[in-house]
């Protein structure tokens, strides 16, 4: 088997505060293969964005990586000096943020921002960089890219800007693109197009995608595998079909049940009561146990690890004996 593109090993992200250390990402591990689309879902505050920021090395202080490692193409990148890490960002890992309205510098033209990014990572002349910028804009579906190069971000609509942001993320042909809720801030009518565009252009550039979203429907259509996060941990990870069809973790089951388009396939429909715990009040044992309909004694005391269960892996004591 070939080596995965990205390996995250026991990653931990913490925030030191006056009342102790808050753990936003708690000991998570997963891989992303070359060209694969990994969906990451979970409630607000589950630690999805923090995981993405940790991988690309952009956690804002006082937050910090408190443990674990991140390997890209077999090389550790979580402890690189800033000058080395800069060569990874944009060149190896591209990033797409949630809000295209604020992601672009309002005082520079689209062309200036694209060309600057291209020339930071590739030794191209001005005219060659310009040519590449036009190509990229064309690829992401900006009509008449040559003339739009001199436009400022405010002259683009939200959907158009997110296309530009995708072009910027792909400017230096990275091997991985982390897209953090790339369509949440967009009009519903353009969301599907942007997701399709992201998937298509990344595939064309041979880039793997880590797609962070709230929307299980998007994952179902786009991702190869999905990781479900809850309170800073991965509770289930596996092929999309498998996770949707036969969710192992009760939290995933609840999540699937709350999606109208998927729930008709389920015969058991239930609502998860309560809400995710705050970081300073994560219960011992399984973090989900106060809300779990199947809770038993062990869940309250011991923290479950991810174990293989069918094609997926889940962190739930219900499947502890299921090892094969």
């Amino acid at each position, binding site marked *: 088997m070939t080596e995965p593109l990205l390996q995250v090993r026991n990653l931990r992200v913490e925030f030191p505060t006056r009342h102790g250390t808050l753990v936003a990402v708690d000991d998570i591990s997963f891989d992303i293969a070359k060209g694969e689309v990994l969906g990451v879902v979970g409630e607000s505050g589950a630690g999805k964005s923090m995981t993405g920021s940790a991988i690309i090395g952009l956690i804002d202080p006082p937050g910090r990586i408190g443990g674990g490692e991140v390997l890209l193409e077999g090389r550790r990148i979580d402890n690189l000096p800033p000058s080395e890490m800069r060569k990874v960002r944009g060149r190896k890992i591209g990033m797409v943020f949630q809000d295209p309205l604020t992601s672009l510098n309002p005082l520079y033209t689209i062309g200036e921002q694209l060309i600057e990014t291209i020339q930071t990572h590739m030794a191209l002349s001005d005219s060659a960089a310009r040519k590449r910028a036009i190509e990229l804009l064309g690829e992401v579906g900006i009509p008449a890219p040559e003339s739009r190069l001199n436009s400022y971000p405010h002259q683009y609509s939200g959907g158009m800007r997110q296309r530009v942001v995708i072009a910027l*993320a792909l400017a230096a042909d990275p091997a991985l693109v982390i897209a953090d809720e790339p369509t949440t801030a967009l009009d519903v009518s353009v969301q599907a197009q942007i997701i399709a565009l992201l998937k298509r252009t990344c595939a064309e550039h041979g880039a793997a995608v880590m797609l962070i979203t709230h929307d299980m429907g998007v994952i179902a259509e786009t991702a190869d595998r999905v990781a479900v996060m809850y309170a800073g941990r991965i509770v289930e990870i596996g092929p999309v079909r498998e996770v949707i069809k036969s969710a192992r973790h009760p939290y995933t089951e609840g999540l699937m049940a709350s999606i109208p388009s998927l729930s008709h396939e389920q015969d058991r429909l239930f609502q998860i009561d309560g809400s995710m715990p705050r970081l300073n009040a994560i219960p011992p044992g399984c973090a989900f146990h106060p809300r779990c309909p199947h809770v038993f004694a062990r869940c309250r005391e011991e923290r479950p690890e991810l174990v293989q269960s069918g094609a997926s892996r889940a962190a739930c004591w219900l499947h502890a004996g299921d090892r094969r």
Partner: protein
Amino acid sequence: MIAFVLRRFAQAVIVMLAVALVAFVMFRFMGDPITNLLGQDATVADRQAMMERLGLDRPMPVQYFDFISRAVQGDFGISYRMARPVSEVILERLPATLELAAVSGLMALLLGVSFGVYTALRRDGWLSHVIMTVSLIGVSLPTFLIGILLIWVFAVELGWLPSFGRGETIQIGWWRTGFLTESGLKSLILPAITLGLFQMTLIMRLVRSEMLEVLRTDYIRFARARGLSSRAINFGHALKNTLVPVITITGLQLGAIIAFAIITETVFQWPGVGLLFINAIKFVDVPVMSAYLLLIALIFVTINLIVDLLYYAVDPRLRVERPKAADTT
């Protein structure tokens, strides 16, 4: 673009007319111009004749219009105290004030922006803490006290720099400059620091807080995520955005420098228009006072106009324009 300039220009004219009204009221009603010209013991007939000669018996709006049209031509009447045309006296004093203001303004701008950027980027460095602490002194001490302290240290104790006047000056046309002689330049140092210190600290604090704000924005995060160098991020992306709001305040500060020059000129006996104004107040030399008022207003309005145009040039969002293509996504 043209509509924008015209609108701003019209606003400037309205402001000037309003200030002119104040200057006119001052000119016309403060003290008694007839008594000032003829003395206390003039006869009623003499006074009447003088009233008619000066046109002071005409309706007020006519007199106001007359005042404005003469002011536009640079005629502000005769100084009571010096018995010379006011415009002549002001023109003679203006270069001293403008040179002082230009040097302190430039100093305030260059140092203010540099220190502001430095303290924002090295927020926890010891030098930043030193600069911030010193700047606190800069904003909290009154100008005249700073001037007196500087005189005491550098003129009295150390004897390095002169404590008053402009030193030797050289006449170039109607402009009398202190830039070309050593004593002229030396004389400029202490007043320029005194005058510019407050504005410098203000600009510095403004740049610092704006810069910190900008560094937290999404587009700076995105610029980092694209792997741009910190140099390109800090000085290309962040600084340019920082300067957009800073331009306005800085422009106003430069106007304030000229207005505040009064205090500095008094402390250093700097022979500029500020000192002229102070002396005019002492002697109720109303024509000089109203002319000074108009001059300061004109400078403020002009700077404001330039600031607006600059703002327009820097920030593309202000250039109103419809998005070219309809949204196709």
